[in-house]
């Protein structure tokens, strides 16, 4: 799209030119924090009313920066769930103003000030959904395990990858097309227990944003979405502990100051104990099994001075599964992020991040004659440098660079001398993914706001190793050896990003966005659900970067003094270099997996409607999505377009939360969606005396429609005590709907002359109870 690139460049030059002519301005900047805990607040709004009005919101570190000319101003600072601060002052020089906001527990009595509660309407950002972490606590979930990813799936445009599954599909993308960031570190496998729980312990989480489109230029690397999760920094004022005891897991979080008001730490951990029940069994085939997961989130920060703050955060999680003394299987992520916030000047904010991310799995077979161990990993070292620069009051620049070094160890098979298994090591693959970006948020006038930017992304596949090139049928046409540090293949792409909002009146706006996204690392999974052993591959001689172009239009409107928010977005997405497999592809320990890949196109479109009641005794939302997503591969389905497996026509979610009094909160979730596109038989035949099914076309059928109602109730302990506790009671699938987890076709076991269709339901009605505490 050279046209969009040209437009972005012209706008950027204009902005810089304007800057050179700009008059003297004063900079007002500072941090906004929670008065009780000292936690920085992300997305809090600051508004200056006076001779040159200005407004903005705090960034990921709770920092804001505004430019105004000399004069008298009324400064108003607000954030949802907090009491608004209003202050009058004269500004005659650059000034640092930090604010500590007081939490407002009476959500329903919040005086809605006219300041910035309409951020959703006025911001040019679209395709963005934010989750209030407090909301998560009240939404009913499977087995009482609060889960960010499952709550996200209740928003329009974000679909669950299956019953109880924390995997999700965004606007027709697959699960590996979501960039999942935890304190900026990419998380490769964001689920526990084959997807039933996400790796995100909601105790440790401060802010959750998901971009379904219109991704700002600082994000890149995945096609469909960016899920940006920020961990809590820790209480800077006092030590506190909180936790919970549930049916299948327990959690504990401890936080407190390192040096009061200067630095703090937070450690949060949880572990499941499903296998503790196995131990109760007297059957040795049961009580010797292991099945659990744990995760630990830890973070510390220290403010060196007004201009420098350091943050260190980490996540460590692992699933362990052991079947008696026969098999062992464990997998998990580790991420570490070291960050340095620095203020170069009143106008230039900088963040430097060093990030390490590692996902690996180990499979062990202890059977003497076949013993083996498989190790596989993906490891990233990542450097990010981000700048935010207030060019003028109308232009806020963001620019930076990012370099990631990927190392993928597809598999190392080891075995001892007794084993019939041969030791094998598949060559490691190394890649360098780098990007530079610039974007500008431009308030053109009172009504028109733009965010536009460019991201230049490069990918290099590095030696050492033997690299094969395949023809269209998967035959090797060339094998070439490369030395360490050699560049095997390079790809360079420009990704224009553009979004605009036009405010029709204070309560409504129109928005539009165009985004190009590039993906250089791809998850190989031919199963219908994700598995911990799914393999990552990078661009190569054969695999090209995936490309998605998305255009979206939206109408945003708030009602009743911003009490209700409504949005309607339509999108169309075109995808290139999508990946599928030839049938019969074996992904395990397959050094030549690229020979089995097929490349094609994709398209997705839809409309998403969202209505939310934001305040009051009763709040909640309705989300509805109508969508289509299709793929086309020359070698699949006779080259005809087919529905992707994540295609669902209708998707509806209703969430209601009712605060019945100071102690009781009731909530309920209802979901309905059309079944996924799926391949079922259209006939059968016999081969070697056994029944084999005939498939007429790919994904030509639908699984039965899915619907479910969950309810929960939370009882808070009596207020005023040192130990605060609460009980959560929940019922998942209240009316015991038998939703299909899988549909199987087979010979009738009682009458082998017939075939039958069976439906497996995983979760019928399931009650849960959790006790939470805090002191």
């Amino acid at each position, binding site marked *: 799209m050279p046209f969009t690139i040209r437009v972005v460049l012209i706008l950027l030059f204009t902005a810089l030119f304007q800057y050179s002519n700009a008059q003297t301005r004063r900079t007002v900047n500072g941090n906004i924090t929670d008065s009780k805990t000292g936690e920085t607040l992300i997305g809090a709004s600051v508004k200056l009313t006076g001779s040159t009005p200005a407004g903005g919101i705090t960034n990921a570190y709770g920092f804001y920066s505004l430019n105004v000319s000399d004069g008298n101003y009324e400064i108003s600072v607000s954030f949802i769930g907090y009491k608004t601060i209003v202050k009058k002052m004269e500004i005659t020089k650059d000034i640092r103003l930090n604010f500590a906001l007081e939490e407002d527990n009476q959500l329903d009595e919040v005086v809605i000030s006219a300041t910035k509660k309409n951020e959703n309407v006025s911001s040019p950002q679209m395709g963005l959904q934010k989750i209030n972490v407090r909301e998560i606590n009240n939404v009913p979930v499977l087995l009482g395990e609060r889960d960010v990813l499952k709550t996200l799936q209740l928003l329009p445009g974000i679909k669950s990858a299956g019953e109880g599954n924390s995997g999700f599909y965004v606007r027709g993308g697959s699960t590996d097309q979501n960039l999942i960031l935890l304190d900026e570190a990419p998380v490769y496998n964001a689920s526990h227990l084959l997807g039933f729980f996400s790796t995100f312990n909601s105790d440790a989480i401060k802010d959750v944003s998901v971009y379904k489109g219109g991704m700002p230029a600082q994000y890149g690397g995945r096609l469909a979405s960016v899920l940006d999760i920020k961990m809590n920094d820790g209480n800077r004022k006092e030590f506190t502990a909180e936790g919970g005891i549930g049916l299948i897991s327990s959690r504990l979080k401890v936080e407190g100051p390192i040096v009061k008001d200067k630095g703090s730490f937070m450690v949060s951990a949880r572990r499941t104990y499903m296998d503790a029940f196995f131990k109760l069994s007297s059957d040795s085939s049961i009580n010797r099994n292991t099945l659990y997961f744990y995760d630990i989130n830890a973070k510390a920060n220290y403010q060196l001075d007004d201009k420098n703050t350091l943050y260190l955060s980490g996540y460590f999680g692992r699933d362990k599964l052991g079947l008696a003394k*026969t098999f062992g299987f464990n997998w998990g992520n580790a991420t570490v992020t070291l960050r340095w916030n620095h203020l170069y000047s009143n106008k230039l904010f900088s963040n430097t991040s060093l990030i390490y991310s590692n996902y690996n799995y180990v499979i062990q077979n202890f059977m003497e004659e076949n013993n*083996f161990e498989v190790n596989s990993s993906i490891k990233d070292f990542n450097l990010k440098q981000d700048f935010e620069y207030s060019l003028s009051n109308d232009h806020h620049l963001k620019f930076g660079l990012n370099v990631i070094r990927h190392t993928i160890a597809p598999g190392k098979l080891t075995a001892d001398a007794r084993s019939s298994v041969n030791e094998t090591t598949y060559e490691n693959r190394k890649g360098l993914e780098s990007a530079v970006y610039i974007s500008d948020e431009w308030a053109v006038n009172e009504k028109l706001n733009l965010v536009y930017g460019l991201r230049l992304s490069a990918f290099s596949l590095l030696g050492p190793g033997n690299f094969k090139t395949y023809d269209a049928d998967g035959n090797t046409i060339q094998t070439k050896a490369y030395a360490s540090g050699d560049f095997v293949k390079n790809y360079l792409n420009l990704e224009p990003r553009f979004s605009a909002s036009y405010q029709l009146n204070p309560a409504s706006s129109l928005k539009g966005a165009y985004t190009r996204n590039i993906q250089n690392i791809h998850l190989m999974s031919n199963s219908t659900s994700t598995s911990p052993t799914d393999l990552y591959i990078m661009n190569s001689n054969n695999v090209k970067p995936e490309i998605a172009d998305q255009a979206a239009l939206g109408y945003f409107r708030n009602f009743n003094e911003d009490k209700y928010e409504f949005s309607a977005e339509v999108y169309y997405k075109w995808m290139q270099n999508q990946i599928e497999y030839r*049938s019969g592809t074996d992904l395990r320990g397959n050094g030549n997996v690229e020979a089995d890949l097929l490349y094609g196109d994709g398209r997705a479109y839809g409309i998403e409607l969202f209505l939310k009641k934001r305040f009051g005794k009763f709040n909640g939302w309705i989300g509805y999505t109508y969508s289509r997503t299709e793929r086309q591969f020359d070698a699949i389905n006779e080259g005809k377009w087919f529905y992707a497996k994540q295609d669902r026509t209708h998707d509806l979610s209703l969430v209601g939360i009712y605060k019945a009094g100071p102690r009781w909160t009731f909530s309920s979730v209802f979901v309905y969606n059309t079944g996924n596109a799926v391949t079922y*038989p259209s006939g059968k035949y*016999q081969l070697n005396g056994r029944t084999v099914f005939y498939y007429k076309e790919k994904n030509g059928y639908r699984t039965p429609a899915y619907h479910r109602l969950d309810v929960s109730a939370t009882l808070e302990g009596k207020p005023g005590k040192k130990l605060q506790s609460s009980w959560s009671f929940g019922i998942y699938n209240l009316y015991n709907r038998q939703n299909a987890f899988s549909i199987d076709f087979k010979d009738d076991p009682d009458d082998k002359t017939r075939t039958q269709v069976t439906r497996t339901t995983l979760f019928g009605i*399931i009650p849960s109870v959790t006790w939470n505490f805090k002191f």
Partner: protein
Amino acid sequence: MKRMNLKKYTRCVFAIIAVSAFSACEKVIDLKLDEAVPVIVIDGGISDLNENHIIKISKTYNFTEPNKFNGVSKASIVLKADGKVQAAFVETLPGVYQTTTKFKGKSGVRYDLAVTFEGKTYEASSVMPARVILDALTFKTFNFFGGNKSYIVANFSDPAGVANQYRYILRTKGVVEEDAVSEDRFNDGNKVENVIFYELDDLLKGDSVHVEFQCIDRNVYRYFYSLGQNSGQGGPPVSPANPPSNFSNGALGVFNAHTSSSRTAVIK
């Protein structure tokens, strides 16, 4: 081997989660399925045994009909060995075609099969691999979640330095109960003990289990591997598709030139 174990893991994880949820259940349901236009299916093989080799030709039929061999008559078949016509076929039962003479297929020979039916010709070729014999059948018991399960183990010596693919056809009382394949990617050149995951626990003392062990070529392996993926056999389910046939012109099925050696075990 590795493949089967992985499937076991996943099956167990699902089982454990299901048990923990107290409520997983399986139910027979009615589902409306399309009635597709019938498609030709060719299922045939040439073995290295001295026998009349059989090619079965049938058509697909609707899911709701009783299981049957839906044979089609009056097909003409030409079999060539390394380019020379090898044998003539005669139809003995509807859809069942058999060579008029007995002969042994030879390892290293490329067999080409051409089937002409209703004016269309379907061609496939398969190279008979070198022979590996099944040394013995043994039993193995696993202490899996919820109790003991017994299985048959195929014992053989894999030749080193070549890629081998094997197929195991397990029959009890003359009925095919399991039809699985493996390859030597992880155990080339070793003594192999491969578990055939058919549960023997329903069998009685004195029942016999017959295992035919075939050496098959790469394309045939891929066909049966894909077939196994479709039927799920407990592993993470893949999106099913017709297995990649070695026949041209859209015929289903496979043409398999293979070596064959068999053993029988008796349940004690």
